[in-house]
C-alpha cells in the first residue's frame, strides 16, 4: 500500500508539472517522469511486459520524438494576452468537478472477484501470456494496427515533405491558378456551368 501511495504522489506531481511548466522541454521531461512512474505501477498490477513496453516505446521513442520537435520549432514563449482569459479558472473548476465525480463513481465499483484468485489467471502479465491472447483473441486488431502504423508513417512523411527547389514556382502558380479559375467560373454565368 505504501508503494502505491509513493507512486501515486509521484505520478500526480509529474502530471501537474507537465501542465504548469512554461517551457516545453520541462513539461515534456515531467511527462516522461509520470510515464515511468506508471510503468512501475503496471508492475504492481501484474503487467510486467506492458511495463517494459511502456518504458521502451512510450517513454523512449514517443517522448524523444516530442523533445525533438520541441527543439526543432523552439517557438518563443507565449507572447501577447490570452484572448480567452476566462478559460483558465473555468477549466480548473471543470477539472476538479470531473475528477471528484469520476473518483466518486470509482469508489462505487464492487470488485467482481477477490484479487488473489483474479491475479492468479494473469500469470503476472508475462510476455508469453500477453502474446498468447494477442495472437488468438486479438489477431484482427493486431493486424489492423500494423497497417495503421504503416499509414501513420506515410502520413507523417507526406505532411512535412519539402518539395525540391525547382517546382517551388510550379506549386505556387498552380495553386494560384486553380483558385481564380474556379472563382471566374461561378460568378460569370451559372447557366454555362449547368449547360
Amino acid at each position, binding site marked *: 500500500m505504501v508503494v502505491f501511495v509513493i507512486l501515486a504522489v509521484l505520478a500526480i506531481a509529474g502530471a501537474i508539472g507537465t501542465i504548469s511548466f512554461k517551457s516545453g522541454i520541462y513539461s515534456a521531461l515531467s511527462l516522461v517522469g509520470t510515464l515511468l512512474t506508471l510503468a512501475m505501477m503496471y508492475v504492481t498490477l501484474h503487467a510486467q511486459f506492458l511495463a517494459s513496453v511502456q518504458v521502451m516505446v512510450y517513454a523512449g521513442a514517443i517522448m524523444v520524438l516530442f523533445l525533438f520537435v520541441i527543439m526543432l520549432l523552439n517557438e518563443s514563449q507565449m507572447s501577447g494576452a490570452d*484572448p*480567452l482569459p476566462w478559460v483558465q479558472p473555468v477549466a480548473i473548476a*471543470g477539472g476538479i468537478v*470531473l475528477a471528484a465525480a*469520476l473518483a466518486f*463513481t470509482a469508489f*462505487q465499483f464492487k470488485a467482481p472477484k477477490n484479487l488473489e484468485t483474479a491475479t492468479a489467471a494473469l500469470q503476472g502479465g508475462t510476455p508469453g501470456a500477453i502474446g498468447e491472447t494477442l495472437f488468438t483473441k486479438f489477431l484482427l486488431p493486431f493486424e489492423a494496427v500494423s497497417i495503421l502504423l504503416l499509414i501513420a508513417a506515410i502520413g507523417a512523411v507526406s505532411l512535412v515533405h519539402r518539395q525540391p527547389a525547382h517546382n517551388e514556382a510550379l506549386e505556387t502558380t498552380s495553386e494560384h491558378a486553380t483558385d481564380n479559375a474556379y472563382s471566374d467560373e461561378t460568378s460569370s454565368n451559372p447557366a454555362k456551368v449547368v449547360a
Partner: protein
Amino acid sequence: MDFNHNLFALMPVLPLLGWLVLIVWGKNMKEPTPGILASSLVFLSFVLAVVGFVQVSPMKEPLLNTLRWDFLPMWVSDAKGVLVSKPLQFGFALDHLSSIMTLIITGIGFLIHVFAIGYMHGDKGFSRFFAYLNFFIAMMLILVLADSYPVLFIGWEGVGVASYLLIGFWYTDVKNSDAARKAFIVNRIGDAFLMLGMFLLFMTFHTLNIHEINSSFGSVVIPNVTTISTGIAFGSPPLELAALFLLLGAAGKSAQLPLSTWLPDAMAGPTPVSALIHAATMVTAGVYLVARSHGIFANAPGASSWVMWIGALTAVYGALSAIAQTDIKKILAYSTVSQLGYMFIAVGSGAYWVGIFHVATHAFFKALLFLSSGSVIHAVGGEQDVRQMGGLREKLPTTHIVSLIGTLAIAGIIPLAGFFSKDAILSSVFTSPFGGDFSGYAIWAIGLIVAFLTAGYMWRWYSLVFLGTYRGHAHPHESSSVMTVPLWILAALSVVGGFIGLPHFLGKNVNWLEGFLEEAAPNALGFHEIPLWGELILIALALAAAVGGILFSRWIIARDGVNSAGWIATRFGNASRKALFVDQTYDIAVSAPAKFISEQLELADTHGLDRGIGALANGTAEAGASLSVWQSGFVRAYAIAVLLGTAILVGYLALRSFA
C-alpha cells in the same frame, strides 16, 4: 343508323359546317359567295325542319335520335343504394314544341341571311359575319333540339358566345367591344342561376333529361294532391326554388327586369344581328325554356306567379323607356324587352301555347321592323337618329308599306298577327289558375296599359321615320331587291301569322296551335271558364287600347310637331330616354364596388401576404445569425464546452447512483 330517326339531328350540323368552312376558307372567298353559302345551308336546315315537322306532327311521343354518346359523368344510386354509373347522353329530341321553334329559327334565320347579303355589302369582315351568323343558328338549333338540360345549356351558352361575337363585330370601336362584353357577362349571370337550377333538379329528380322530368309529373295534376311519382308535391319548396332558378336563368337570356340592361346596348351590333338574335330567336330562348319545362312551372304556383309579375314589370319598364328614345334601333330594342315581358306573362299564366304563339308572331313583325329600320339606315347612309329622318314615305315606298304593316301588327290591330297573340295573352292571364284572387286581374290591367303604350311609341316610331318632311342631309334611295324580298315575306307572315291561334269563341277546335302543342306543352290545370260575352269584352278592350294608343300618339305629334320638342324635354322624357336610370344604378351599385374590391384584394394578395411571409423568413434568419456568434474559432473554447459537458454528465450519473 336508321335514317328517319337521325335526319332531324342533321339540322344543327349544317350551319356548324358552314361556320367551319367560312372560318377556315372565308378569307379567300369573293364578296357574295360566303353569304350565298351561309343562306343556302340555313335554307337546307329549313327544309329539314319542315320535313321534321311533317314527320313529328302525327306522333304523340318525342322523336329521339339514335346517334348518341356519353357526354357527362353521372352516378345514380339504384334501388339498393348501390352507386351505378349512368352517364348523361348527348342526344337530340324533336317534338311539336321544338319543331315549331326550329321552323321559326331556320325560317326567319334564312330571310335575315338573305337580307344581310345586301346589308353587309362592302364590309371588310363579310365572310366572318356570315360564319358567326351560321354559328348562331347552329347553337340556337342545339338549344331547341336538346333532350336534356346540359345539352340545352350548350346551346344556351353557345348563343351567348355568338351574340358576344356579333355584337362586337366591329371590334375596333371600344363601345362595341364593351357592349359585347357586357352582354356576355350579364348572360353569364343568368347562366349561373340556370346551372344552380339544373343541380337542384338533379338533386330532386336524379335525372337531367327534360322529358323524364316532365313525365315524372304525370299529365293530370290536381292542385295540392301529391301525384308525382318522385314524391315531389305540387308546389313543394325544392320545386319552387328550382323553378325560380330557371326563371332567373331565362331572365338573363331574355333580358327580363333584373338582367335587362344588356339588350339596348346590344344594338351596337349590325342590324341583321339585332333582327335575328335580339328580336326573333335568342331572346325568346328564355320563353322556350319555361315552356319546355312546363311540368316544373305547372306544379310551382309561386314561381309561376313570379314569372308573371316579372313579365308584367318588364313590359311596363320596356314600354316606358321606349317612348322617348331617339335612336331608331333603341326604340325597337326596348319594344322587344316589353314584348318579351308579354311572353313571360303568357308562360307564367300557365298557357304555354300562348307564349309560343306570341314568340312566333313577335318574331315575324319584330324581325320585319328591325329589317325595315336596317334598310332605312342603309338608305340614309348609316344615320340612326330618328330626329334626322322623316318623310321617307315617298323615297322608300316598299320599306314604308312593310313598316306600316309591322307597326299595325305590333300595335295589335284586328286582322294582323299581333292582335290575336296579344289578345290570347290578355285572356289567358285574366283566367290563369296562378292568378290568385288579385294578381291575375292586376297583371291584365298592366297588360292593357302596355298595349296602349306600345301602340303609342310604335306610331311615334313610324311617323318620325316616314311622315313629315325629310330632316336629314343624305339622299335616301330604296334598297335593292335582295333586301326588299325578305321584307315582303315577313310582312305577309305578319298578316297571316295570327290565324294559327284563333280565339276560342270562334269555335271549339278552330285554334290549331293549342291542339298541336297539347302533349308537348300542355296548359296548367285550372283555367276558369269565362262566358262568351266576357271574351268579347276582353277583345274589344284590347282593340280599343291599340287604336287609342295610335290616336293619342297622332294627337301628341300633331301638337308638338315632328321633332316633338314638347314633352320629351320634360323630366319624364329624360327619365324615359335614360331607361329609368336602371343602367346607371347597376354601374354604381354593382360594377364599381366589385372593381374596387378586386383591386384591393389584388394589392392585399401581392404585397400584404408577401410582407407577412417575408417577416417570418427574416425572423428565422436572425435567429440563425445570433447562434453563429458562438462559433468563435478558438479551439479551446470548443474544448471547454466538451469538458464542461462531460463533467456535468458524469456528475449527474454519480449523484443519481448516490441519491
